[in-house]
């Protein structure tokens, strides 16, 4: 055991010194062309990703998209089939989880049921052969930071509520001050209210500690709330990496666009002319149908395309005189959501209903069956490949 402690200390020393050296350098995680296969089933196809120091990045995608595989590779539970991984400037091949500067918060939390809260939180320090008195003081510090009441020290995880267990899991992961915290959908089992509270706690924690977080979730809304950058994944590929606003308003394709919230797609033909793109479609008529090329997904060229317009930038045109692009249809259903009213409008020639989200009023401007005209500014649209 002594030799192992020595090895641990040795690597710890290196990682501490490495951190000093790296403080000027930005990327803490460098994933380069990583692929992972389980038998013949490919889970990851040549993923490349850089995570900046202190950044909170979210990996988002439907189940089976490879986000958890990528996280397990980062944690060291799995080795990439090909490609390389560097964390804090060190190559991670054949380095076991214990010796990596990463800590993981598990989906089912994985708190040790036979250990008390204090023993759970102090476990990483105990493994690092830290002095007992120091463990005790750092556990107390950590519990205070995670707002866990001191009398919980000697309770067992089963005696705590879901949110408290969550905080114990976070505290256990953070106590040894890792460079990177990996979160594997830890909030997925919580009810909506608790989830919101934990989301703001994670954000708060991230702001306070300056550790890089990699947060895996299938909930893009959660990702948008928490993350500095979001990587949207689908069947082993990263479709798009960008800020929440980029992912929301400038998605790379219709999969990314449709993954969060409601979106309207209108089929159009586009004509690319240098830095300008003009579009025309059967269902919409525009006073000006000419937008800068920065309002289109990169690489989009003359041909079939789609106009994406978010429901909240669309207004109902009651006067019939507002400039912009307009579509006309019949109200199919409306939902009073309180702060807003959602209309679902059936438009001829469109399979999907057109969704409009207008600010809430005490009397809705239109009811089911009414003919309505929806209008939006061409500056608010985004052009996507069909």
């Amino acid at each position: 055991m002594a030799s192992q402690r020595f090895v641990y200390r040795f690597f710890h020393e290196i990682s501490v010194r490495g951190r000093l050296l790296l403080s000027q350098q930005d990327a803490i995680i460098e994933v380069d062309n990583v692929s992972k296969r389980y038998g013949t089933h490919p889970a990851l196809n040549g993923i490349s990703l850089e995570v900046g120091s202190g950044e909170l990045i979210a990996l988002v995608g439907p189940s089976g998209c490879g986000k958890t595989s990528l996280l397990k590779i980062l944690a060291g539970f799995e080795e990439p089939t090909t490609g390389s991984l560097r964390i804090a400037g060190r190559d991670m091949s054949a380095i076991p989880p214990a010796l990596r500067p990463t800590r993981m918060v598990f989906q089912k939390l994985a708190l040790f049921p036979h250990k008390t809260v204090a023993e759970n939180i102090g476990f990483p320090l105990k493994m690092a052969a830290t002095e007992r008195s120091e463990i005790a003081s750092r556990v107390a510090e950590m519990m205070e930071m995670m707002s866990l009441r001191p009398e919980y020290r000697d309770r067992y995880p089963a005696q705590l509520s879901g949110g408290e267990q969550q905080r114990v899991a976070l505290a256990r992961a953070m106590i040894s001050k890792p460079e990177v915290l990996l979160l594997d959908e830890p909030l997925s089992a919580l009810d909506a209210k608790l989830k919101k509270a934990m989301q703001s706690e994670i954000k708060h924690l991230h702001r306070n500690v300056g550790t890089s977080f990699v947060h895996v979730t299938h909930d893009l809304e959660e990702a948008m709330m928490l993350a500095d950058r979001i990587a949207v994944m689908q069947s082993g590929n990263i479709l798009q990496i960008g800020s929440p606003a980029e992912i929301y308003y400038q998605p790379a394709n219709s999969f990314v666009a449709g993954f969060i919230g409601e979106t309207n797609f209108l089929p159009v033909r586009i004509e690319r002319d240098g830095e300008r793109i003009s579009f025309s479609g059967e269902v919409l008529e525009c006073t000006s149908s000419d937008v800068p090329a920065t309002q289109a997904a990169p690489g989009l060229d003359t041909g079939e395309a789609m106009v994406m317009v978010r429901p909240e930038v669309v207004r109902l045109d009651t006067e019939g005189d507002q400039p912009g692009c307009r579509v006309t249809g019949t109200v199919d259903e409306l939902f009073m959501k309180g702060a807003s009213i959602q209309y679902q409008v059936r438009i001829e020639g469109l399979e999907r209903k057109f969704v409009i989200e207008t600010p809430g009023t005490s009397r809705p401007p239109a009811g089911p069956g009414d003919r309505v005209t929806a209008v939006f500014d061409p500056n608010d649209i985004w052009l996507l490949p069909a």
Partner: protein
Amino acid sequence: MQIRTKRWSSPTLLLTTLPLAALLITFFIVPLAMTGVLSFQGTEYYRLVWTWDLEVWREVFSQFSYWSTMLRTLTMALIAVFLCVVISIPVAYALVHRLAAVQNHVKILIVFAFLTDAVLKSFGWVLFLDRSGVFNGMFALIGFGPVTTDILFEPAATMIGMVYNHLPYTIFTIYLSMSRIDRDLMQAAYDAGASKIRTFFEVTLPLSLPGILAGGVLVFVLSLGVFLEPKVLGGGKAPMAAELIRQTFETRVNWPLGAALTLVLIVIGALTVIAASALLLRLLPKTGEH
């Protein structure tokens, strides 16, 4: 888990527990009481006489040889429990974590060995351990002289038989509690900087204790009652309690004495199990669940 408390006198409770209660009373309480009653009688010319005295108990407490047999039985049983548990833990661990692919095949093999009659298995060991048996033959082949070990008909051979015949109980109980441990807990321990060995002692072993305790009690109780192994493998040189009781009943036809010895064995066994449980319950992982 929540256990609902009901009144003893609740009619549904009494009715639903009736079959089990009847079974226990008929086949456990009544025979035990009869044994107790029997131990206060005497014998004359191989016949039972209803004397209602303490003559038999006086003999039990004055004869050292009975107690040395009891003590030997207790020691052998405890050693068997220890060996079974120590052998079963790595086997169960390997079954859960290393041999996942062939797990079912190995389990079937263990069940086959378990279901084979103990007499056959014990005689198999005789052939194996005999002076001219496989064991010595193997060592002779690699140059250890004609007779390396001569343990057949020694207590060691009895122990080998006992451990071999009772091993499946501990393997399966420990396997069951080990396989129920969430794999994430081990990964969490690795992630927190624990080595595999450390993880085993910090996570796997404490969470397997219920299985170890259950298997240990099973093997202990079964070991107290062995008579086959001491006879076949031990050569009858060092009879254990079960053999002593059998002889008292059958050969000496002294039923009251046999009954008294039976009670002594039951009390020793029960006290040991209670003491060991009290000790182990302290070690058992507390989870705060009720």
